[in-house]
């Protein structure tokens, strides 16, 4: 069994390195994106082999799923723009813009040296006594949850998770600030897709997905699962509903959408502050309150994460032709000033 296991590990590792190399070397964008998704799925196999089912779930849903979907969606915009000309540099990179050979050579040599050095250093490192894992295991009962990863994420290092949500919100605000606005995606409300099969799948899959997401959020305290995995599942349901025209695409213009995006973070911060008078430290849950508070925070986060992911996926704009007014270097370096000036002139 160990020999078989080793063969499987070796195959996974070879596949990973092979896929990565091919995807970085290929000149065709579509191929690269397909390889990226395959790479992500292979990687989640690797996480299972390394005894990390929590990560395998997240990798399949977020790393391969959402990221792959983001790339495909963006790719779709590019093909719309160039029509049928497959030789556009947007989709086929002939490498003519790559840096000169000497740069590649020096960098490649450096990278090779680093691979050898780091590999040698890490393989040479011996066993060390593990302190932290034992400590985490010993104090896990105090966190109110039984899944050690959830315990670390939402109690021992809850602050990191709060800031991680802030990263998502920052990316969301950044994407919104690109002002791509209310591009119609799929169909408008009240104009359901005429395709009966898609409709049937939506009606069947969305309830199942929602139930599974609720289950994943809830089970995250004892078993693999949690807000991020559940949120990305819920996002899948949201994308399906938007594509089928049941839900309007969420945009920055809609106040409930903004409220849901900010809600998870707001709830998390307020929970952290609420316990301050009782325990004196931010996010230090009072005794007996850890489990309900963690569950409440996870539920809020699940909704927030789902809305952010749907929004990031749906809100990809068509790429317009270059606008001559904006293409040239802006002389003032200050478009607001220029915009105002245009206003006054007219």
């Amino acid at each position, binding site marked *: 069994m160990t020999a078989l*296991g*080793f063969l499987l*590990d070796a195959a996974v*590792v070879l596949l*990973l390195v092979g896929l*990565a190399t091919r995807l*970085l070397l290929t000149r065709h*964008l579509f191929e690269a994106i397909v390889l*990226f998704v395959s790479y992500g799925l292979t990687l989640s196999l*690797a996480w299972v*082999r*390394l*005894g990390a089912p*929590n*990560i395998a779930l*997240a*990798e399949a849903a*977020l790393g391969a799923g*959402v990221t792959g979907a*983001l*790339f495909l969606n*963006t790719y779709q915009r*590019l093909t719309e723009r160039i029509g049928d000309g497959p030789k556009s*540099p*947007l989709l086929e*990179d002939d*490498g003519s*813009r790559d*840096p000169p050979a000497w740069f*590649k050579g020096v*960098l490649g040599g450096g990278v090779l040296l*680093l*691979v050898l050095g780091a590999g040698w250093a*890490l*393989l040479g490192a011996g*066993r060390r006594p*593990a302190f*932290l894992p*034992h400590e*985490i295991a010993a104090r896990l009962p105090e966190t109110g949850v039984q899944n*050690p*990863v959830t*315990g*670390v*994420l939402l109690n021992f290092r809850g602050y*990191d998770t709060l800031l*991680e949500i802030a*990263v*998502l919100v920052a*990316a969301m605000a950044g*994407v919104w600030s690109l002002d*791509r606005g209310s591009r119609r995606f799929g169909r408008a409300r009240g104009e359901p897709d005429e395709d009966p099969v898609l409709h049937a799948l939506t009606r069947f899959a969305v309830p199942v997905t929602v139930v599974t997401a609720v289950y994943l959020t809830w089970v995250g305290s004892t078993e693999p699962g949690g807000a*991020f995995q559940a949120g990305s599942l819920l996002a899948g349901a949201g994308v399906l509903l938007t594509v089928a025209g049941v839900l309007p695409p969420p945009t920055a213009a809609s106040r409930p959408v903004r409220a849901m995006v900010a809600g998870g973070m707001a709830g998390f911060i307020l929970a952290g502050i609420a316990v301050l008078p009782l325990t004196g430290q931010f996010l230090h849950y009072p005794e007996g309150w850890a489990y309900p508070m963690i569950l409440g925070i996870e539920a809020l986060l699940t909704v927030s994460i789902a809305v952010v992911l749907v929004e990031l996926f749906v809100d990809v*704009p068509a*790429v317009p032709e*270059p606008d001559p007014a904006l*293409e*040239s*270097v802006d*002389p003032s370096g200050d478009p607001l000033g220029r915009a105002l000036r245009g206003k006054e002139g007219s």
Partner: protein
Amino acid sequence: MNPVDLYMLAGIVITLIALYAALTRAHLFWKVLAINLMGTGVFLILLAAPSRRTPEIADPLPQAMVLTGIVVAVAATALALGIALRVIARSGLPFLPDGDEEDQGSGGSAGEASR
């Protein structure tokens, strides 16, 4: 060789070839793809190496770090693709112009052109 060693070495190799690709592929989408791969390489090191050094107990802390890292990578990818699309919308090409080109541009020629 222990299977965990394999994953750790794969992590090192993937991190560094992805770093190489991020710096040498001019196309923006490959840069974003390469940055994603570089992240996964670091995650492999982060998860495989500690369990190699302390095999007697599973360590949840690296798992929590990798989970956080995956979410951060998705967020960064979304923003990077958004800005890349705008670069294409502005210049028609998925490349960043050379630094020098850009430097010259702001001062002399473009300023004159706008007159």
